[in-house]
């Protein structure tokens, strides 16, 4: 009986120590990492510099700037009959469509901005992506604005363009934000690479 009391007392002390420790942990939870969208400005409303009188979420505007810079960098590298650039993929976007309809660039910019904003934490309705699936969007048979299918090397090159565009818009290569953006791009490699 005496032995049982000692064991019971020991268990009580031990439990108290364990629960006290747990309790301390609960009081200081690990900080939750903000989403990429939040870190790019989040839902804070700012004036849209390209649509007079309209407001836009800062996170969405940041993504739009990076998307457009990426397109611009790719277009700058397009050279007739030169290999290694993404001419066949993106040149159709350069066609001027006049003022009678949304341009191909506008559609791509909007779709990519929606896609990246929504999938990195910008879940407000304004960012809802209603385009094709990644596999369908990168297949010329289902998306006429896609010049040709992409190889793994093409996609790596594209990631480089996005990285340079992010740098140009204030996201340095040595930051966690940059690494997280690259991780998102890497997660899309499988459905996009079809060659």
């Amino acid at each position, binding site marked *: 009986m005496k032995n049982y009391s000692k064991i019971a007392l020991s268990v009580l002390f031990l439990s108290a120590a364990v629960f006290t420790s747990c309790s301390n942990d609960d009081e200081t939870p690990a900080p939750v990492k903000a989403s990429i969208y939040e870190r790019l400005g989040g839902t804070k409303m700012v004036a*849209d*510099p*390209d*649509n007079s009188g309209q407001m*836009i979420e800062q996170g969405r505007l940041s993504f*739009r*700037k990076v998307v*457009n*810079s990426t*397109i*611009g*960098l790719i*277009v*700058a*590298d*397009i050279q*007739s009959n030169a290999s290694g650039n993404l*001419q*066949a993929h993106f*040149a*159709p*976007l*350069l*066609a*001027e*469509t*006049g*003022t*009678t*309809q*949304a*341009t*191909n*660039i*506008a*559609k791509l*910019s*909007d779709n990519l*901005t929606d896609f990246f904003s929504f999938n990195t934490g910008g879940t407000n309705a304004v960012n809802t992506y*209603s385009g094709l699936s990644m596999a369908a969007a990168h297949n010329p048979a289902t998306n*006429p*604005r896609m*010049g040709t299918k992409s190889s793994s090397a093409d996609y790596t090159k594209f990631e480089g363009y996005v990285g340079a565009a992010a740098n*140009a*818009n204030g996201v340095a290569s040595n930051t966690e934000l940059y690494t997280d953006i690259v991780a998102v791009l890497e997660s899309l490699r499988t459905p996009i690479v079809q060659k």
Partner: protein
Amino acid sequence: MKINKYIKKALWIAMGITVLFSAILLFHIITAKPAVYETPNLQVSRIDFKEAIDSAQAIQICADLRSIKGLTSDSIIIKRNVVVYFHNNRITNSKKVYAQLMAKRHYDAQPYILPENLASKEVCPMDQNSLGYKVFPEDQSFF
């Protein structure tokens, strides 16, 4: 007599199906909404210079381009001998921008013309600046 009755019945059924399908089609046309884009008139254009552009020239070219009406706030990209810029195609177009840039300074450059085989032509026949387009917003879903 009996055959006539069957033919009549078949015709009524065919007519009913046609009317039903037409009504469904009409409903879809009327309720269809055109896709809405944030900057629908965004266009990217490029000017190729004869020589590589140095940093001093780059600043000058950027300043000259920024003073032309119709360019968007997106970055002007200058790489090697190439300048890429974005503009609103309701306000200006690549020919006008090129002409205005050349009027500001005599640059040895040419606008980039997309080879015909790479151009994607997908043009709506409706002029968005026309009175009809503005007066009948519901009709826009047809285009």
